[in-house]
């Protein structure tokens, strides 16, 4: 078992954000986390990548309690592209991608030949190699996202967590990014807003509603007309995308 979430709850003063969520994930899949705004998707991810600490429950990685692991060890197993893109202070793209090697570095260690080649490969993979000497502040939204992805790839982790990776991207870049991610031979956990993206790329979906796990299954199992109406309060029609043969959804305001 790769990752196991057992009875996770999370509260801030006067508000319970997650209640009693449990699920487990196997290796190599692309797992989508979907749910309405404020349902707790990001919080769930933040707990998995240990930025927030759950109020109760356990998260295990390879059957090991993550609370017992050092942040550095976790960073070697798990890379994250979060919603925030750093704009503060300017780094060149290659310096930024090199930061993905941080979890492997001891105090006095220099950037090795191996690090440079990993960084180069990661930039190649995320299609940002041509930007390597540019500074981050001068890139477009899509380019920034891909640079952050390259940085995460340089971490060479077995799990990649993406928090709404397609936000602010135009449709071309959305598909480009999702295609790229889908090809990776690692486990991906992505919080997604766009249900059609979720259905066409994810192997498995976790639907979160009001801080609780509402349903878990394949896109076909989860994205039904009834469930969508229940959770998102819109009327939905289910069809097929003629290009990909994947499930495709239509929506209208509930009457």
């Amino acid at each position: 078992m790769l990752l196991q979430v057992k009875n996770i709850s999370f509260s801030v003063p006067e508000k319970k954000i997650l209640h009693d969520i449990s699920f487990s994930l196997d290796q190599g899949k692309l797992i989508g986390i979907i749910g309405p705004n404020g349902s707790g998707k990001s919080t769930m991810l933040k707990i998995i990548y240990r930025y927030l600490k759950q109020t109760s429950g356990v998260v295990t990685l390879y059957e090991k309690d993550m609370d017992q692991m050092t942040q550095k060890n976790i960073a070697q197993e798990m890379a994250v592209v979060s919603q925030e893109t750093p704009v503060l202070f300017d780094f060149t793209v290659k310096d930024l991608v090199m930061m993905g090697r941080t979890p492997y570095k001891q105090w006095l260690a220099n950037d090795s030949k191996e690090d440079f080649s990993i960084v180069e490969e990661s930039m190649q993979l995320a299609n940002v190699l041509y930007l390597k000497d540019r500074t981050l502040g001068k890139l477009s939204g899509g380019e920034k996202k891909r640079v952050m992805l390259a940085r995460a790839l340089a971490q060479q982790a077995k799990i990649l967590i993406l928090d709404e990776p397609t936000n602010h991207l135009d449709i071309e870049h959305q598909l480009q990014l999702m295609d790229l991610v889908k090809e990776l031979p690692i486990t991906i956990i992505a919080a997604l807003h766009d249900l059609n993206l979720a259905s066409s790329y994810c192997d498995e979906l976790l639907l979160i509603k009001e801080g609780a796990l509402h349903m878990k299954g394949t896109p076909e199992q989860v994205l039904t007309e009834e469930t969508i109406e229940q959770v998102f309060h819109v009327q939905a029609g289910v069809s097929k995308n003629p290009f990909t043969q994947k499930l495709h959804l239509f929506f209208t305001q509930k009457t």
Partner: protein
Amino acid sequence: MTKLRFTLLIGALIAVLLASMTCAVMVGSVGITPSIIWEVLFSKIGLSIENTASKAQSIIIWEIRLPRIILAAIVGAALAISGAAIQALVRNPIADPYILGVSSGASVGATLVILLGAFSFLGTYALSFAAFLGAIFAVVIVFLLARVNGRTSVIRLLLAGIAISMVFSAITNFMLMTSKQQGGIQAVIHWMLGSLAGAKWSTIGIPFFIFLLVFILLLLNYRQLNALLLGEELATTLGMNLDGFRIFIILVVSLLTGVVVASSGSIGFVGLIIPHFVRMIVGSNYKLVLPISALMGAIFLVWADMVARIAIAPEEMPIGIVTAICGGPFFIWMLRRRRYSFGDGE
């Protein structure tokens, strides 16, 4: 920046620093030529045989000007790297090394000594000791105020720093207002604006070694400093123990600025502008920012001290006035340049 260009830049800056220091030894009421300076220097370390310098010249160079100029370089370098580290810590480009209350705390200590004669049993060390104690005391309070639920909050750190600075400044001002000693008040104001006049070989050792220690510690952690600039969340996912690292930075920077302020008063502006200037040239990577800031800070303060000595000779101008007057317009020019974004990504 390539490795070669970085090495060249470092080499050039070291050359400029040495030239500036030589120049600074020459300037003053007694004229001295560069060759005499190096002769005295070499004979002092036992390398030279011939010595054409007079005894007076040799004393002026060795006992008076040289320690002072070396202290200027150390203080400039120390403030610059402290500023750079603090800006990474609070992830805010307006921060300077005094933002955690160091200078206001030190002022209270210094005022206590000058006006009320506190710690008189320590003799000539009373002033430095009290200033250091005040600085560390202020930082400890700020730090404790910024701790919530076992975490250090950056915004609380900034606000607590401002609040504590206000309270401590008020205490200093109260002591100044109620004091009847004109000379003492003058001395306090002079101290607060900074001066390197008291430098002796015996007093520059501690600042030098603390600077060296902190510089090496910061440079060893350049990856963590870089990660901090990316934001808390990203730094965490890169494997950083955020809280531990913050405490470490606060500790080493407070130690260094405390020692520096104790030896030369609170010289303003260096710690704010030098890191910005350096980032404008080499970018934000702290592997480059730290060593270049140290050298630039040293050069800047050597020149500032030179101006302080000659501007209104034979009187001496407090060096804080020089750094602000020279640094201010320069900073404004930089602010107006469109290429430098100050990190807001515009």
